[in-house]
């Protein structure tokens, strides 16, 4: 989980401790960009072998939503 936070934090260019499971990344992350969103999908694929469709991704609101995709599946 820490690993996931670190990876996400690197994409968002924030410190890992600045994000939690409940962070609504599209709103709470300063200048969140579509390229960051893109990078999250790629990261989940590269690091967790999880293929998330854009539709599914758009349904994810919080960091937790993303994280659960990686562990549960």
């Amino acid at each position, binding site marked *: 989980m820490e690993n996931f936070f670190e990876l996400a934090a*690197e*994409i968002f*260019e924030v410190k890992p401790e600045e994000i939690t499971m409940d962070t609504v990344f599209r709103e709470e992350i300063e200048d969140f960009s*579509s*390229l*960051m*969103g*893109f*990078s999250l*999908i*790629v990261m989940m694929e590269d690091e967790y072998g999880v293929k998330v*469709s*854009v539709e599914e991704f*758009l349904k994810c609101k919080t960091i937790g939503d993303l994280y659960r995709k990686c562990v549960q599946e």
Partner: protein
Amino acid sequence: MKNVVITGVSGGIGKGIADQLIASGTSVIGIDLHFNEEIKQMAALLSDRLFLYEYDLMDTDHLSELIKRIVSEHGKIGGFVHCAGFDKMFPIHMAKITDIENLWRIHALVPMVIISAISKKQNHDEDTSIVLISSQSAHEGAMGHSAYASAKGALEGYLAPAAAELMEKKIRINAVCLAPVKTSMSGGWMDKMTADELKRLLESYPLGIGEVSDASNLICFLLSRESRFINGQIITADGGHSVRKV
């Protein structure tokens, strides 16, 4: 023209060029990592026109031997188009050295090594024609494509000096700058775009996303003697993208 080497011959554009050349009676030597059944059967059928070599291009150390072997088995090479390749998108602050290196290797180093081998006297015909494939992303603000664009830029920077040297060996070399054609490669990143992003992208291509034939028509023209006076040029076929209304 005979013995046109095509890398990535199973892919969209490579396949399109092979079909067009074979139809016009030109023999094709296809190189790829794996071959699907369709193309294998095609090769079986056209046993005098299509020859397949399964090879992992990322293994650059043995590429010149491969070319040597091809020449020994089929005679001098008359043309070359490098279609193999892939794209990987990431923001600059996330760039990994291995990603940058792999993109450069497949798009730039591989064709440079193959051309170096082909350029040897005993390996090429007179009037050999080479076509490199570049991309508009090396000329515009293609967010997330900086490493891919850099690899394509490496090809474009190579073009002019190479053309000057190869001209003395009666070899022509040109590049085509293509807009994304809907193939598995472009699919790779297009599938990761939201509907809005994709819409925005498509709007910037007034003539739509290109057909494979839009690329192969131009490339076959550059391979042919029809274009004997064109050398060292970068020709763009982007469906009006670079002159879209602003």
